[in-house]
């Protein structure tokens, strides 16, 4: 099976869906001539032309709204936000427009749009370019939120998102673009709303998504040397949430650690903790632990940034706490 990068997997998904459906187009800053700020759209303008790969001015609210409007009359836009940080400028179009249109029109106007781009911190980009906004969007009924950790899932989930009739927030990992993994040549889809079991284990369930899956797996590897058996679940989609996969696992392991890059307060992990206490209260042998980004704007200094980010050693410590090993 070919091994390709996360970036190229996304590129394949876009290319295949654009070939498949003439209503699909890609719009955003630097997606065309420049071939993508992160080169996800490399070669697409060459194949599909300027009509379907559209460079925009720096006007996030404007072009996101254009995408939502185009979706209202049956097109299937893919809107690239250069990084999710900039989506804050477009949030009115996403929340008041895309998410609510079907409902407030009494079911008349669907919004089949994908809004995608990298989220989370990279390396020393500072406070305004290093944040995870998944919890903001996951909060909103009407939106679906996906965040792939691997090239395989990136491709399969993006294809599903493009074919979906509802607005999908698609959060990529800025530091995952160069990561590699197996991606089959034949067509496949990864459905929205289905979590993936990354590592089977018996002692504790670790929940993560996007690049935190790698952090969780690294921690699980370390803990295996201490004879602690971790189950790692990649949620892949934060809304709809695969509550069953989460509950089934925690009922078996009786312990849970949630790893998320975003801020702790009202984060996705808080919702996960609620799901678990509702679905598996009697099965829990320890309070749920959360390993999150620090509750601060991201600092620039390398050492401080490192301290602010969830890392494998902090996950190891959290697991040891829920195992009462310390």
């Amino acid at each position: 099976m070919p091994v390709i990068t996360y970036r190229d997997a996304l590129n394949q998904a876009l290319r295949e869906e654009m070939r498949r459906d003439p209503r699909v187009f890609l719009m955003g800053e630097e997606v065309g001539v420049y071939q993508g700020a992160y080169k996800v759209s490399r070669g697409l303008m060459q194949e599909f032309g300027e009509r379907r790969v559209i460079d925009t001015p720096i006007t996030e609210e404007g072009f996101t709204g254009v995408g939502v409007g185009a979706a209202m009359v049956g097109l299937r836009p893919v809107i690239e936000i250069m990084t999710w940080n900039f989506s804050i400028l477009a949030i009115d179009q996403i929340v008041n427009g895309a998410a609510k249109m079907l409902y407030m029109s009494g079911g008349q106007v669907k919004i089949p749009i994908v809004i995608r781009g990298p989220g989370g911190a990279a390396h020393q980009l500072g406070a305004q370019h290093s944040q995870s906004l998944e919890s903001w969007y996951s909060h909103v009924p009407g939106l679906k939120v996906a965040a792939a950790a691997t090239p395989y899932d990136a491709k399969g989930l993006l294809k599903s998102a493009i074919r979906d009739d509802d607005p999908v927030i698609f959060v990529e990992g800025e530091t995952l673009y160069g990561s590699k993994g197996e991606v089959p040549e034949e067509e496949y889809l990864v459905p929205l709303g289905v979590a993936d079991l990354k590592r089977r284990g018996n002692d504790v369930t670790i929940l993560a998504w996007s690049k935190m899956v790698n952090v969780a797996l690294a921690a699980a590897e370390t803990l295996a040397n201490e004879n602690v058996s971790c189950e790692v679940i990649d949620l892949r989609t934060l809304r709809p949430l695969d509550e069953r996969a989460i509950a089934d696992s925690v009922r078996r392991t009786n312990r849970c650690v949630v790893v998320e890059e975003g801020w702790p307060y009202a984060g996705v992990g808080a919702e996960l903790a609620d799901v678990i206490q509702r679905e598996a209260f009697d099965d829990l042998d320890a309070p749920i632990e959360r390993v999150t980004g620090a509750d601060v704007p991201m600092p620039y200094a390398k050492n401080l940034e490192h301290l602010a980010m969830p890392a494998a050693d902090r996950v190891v410590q959290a697991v040891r706490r829920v195992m009462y090993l310390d």
Partner: protein
Amino acid sequence: MPESRFPIPDFTVVAPDMAKEQAAERAPALSREQLLDLLSKMLLGRRFEERAAEMYAMQKIGGFCHLDIGQEAVAVGAISTLRPDDYIFCSYREHVHALVKGSDPRRVMAELFGRETGLSRGKGGSMHLFDAETGLLGGHAIVGGHIPLATGVAFAMKYEQRPQVVLCFFGEAAVNIGAFHESLNMAALWKLPVVYICENNRYGMGTAIERASAIYDVAQRACAYDVASETVDGMDVLAVYDVVSRAVELARHQSLPSLIEARCYRFMGHSMSDPVHGHYRSKQEVEEQKLRDPIRHFFEQLAAQGALDQKGFEEMDGKARRVVEDAIAFADASPEPPPRALFEDVYSEPYGPYTRSANRERRT
């Protein structure tokens, strides 16, 4: 009323006589039937809104309710230039626009009443009327937020080489919103078939334009984006029809955007929650503006041409009143949305499996 640091601009752009001359000169080649149709739509709009106000007072209508009384010439003149499959986007002051675009008055009133038979099945309300069949793509309630959406539909028309055009209505307060500028820039850059119509009724809620805008001439904003623009007397339905016809032609045949500033005046408060006049405008001002009543103005024109007499007007008015009464009766007799509708249409699946509450509901 706070004293303005600025001279209050004349917002009656064109003197009524001049407008008449202009309209006569350009003489949008309308038949008598078409002229009468314009008047009857304005009358229907007026009577609809008057009764909506009463229904609001009786608490049949809830929430916010923004009436178009005084401004009917803009919606009627502009939307009457369209083909049935063209699209319109509106702000939250859109009952009359919906009627003119062809929505069933019964279903518009039922939506205001929050009933299942309403245009948006009772889930939109006064500010969110949608009618996919007539091309009404919404009443939108974030000032200026729908301007990019309309631009997007125009983008889609060009993308698919479809011949339809988009009219986008908003108030003058929306032109200070970023979305307005971002949209005009993209529409000009990409040559999109959209007509932006600013219904300049002079007040963004209670803030007069000269207290909110560094530039009073809204149409002037268009030059920043090399977009064609024109100012028109929004109290003169023929003048509006004339200028919007030309803008629609520009959009349809040359795929170019334009900005029309229609200077009009609302005779009611901003919404049903505030009085006709108050801290921000005087009773005298409102009374003076009422002399420009677009319906009376147009009727007098038609009467002078011999196209309609008082008796004919009264018949037309009676018909409008009957349509509105029928709409009220229909709305009143219609059921509320069933409780199951609460979780419908959050997602495109018939009963969204994805909302948290829906999940809980199913379990219990």
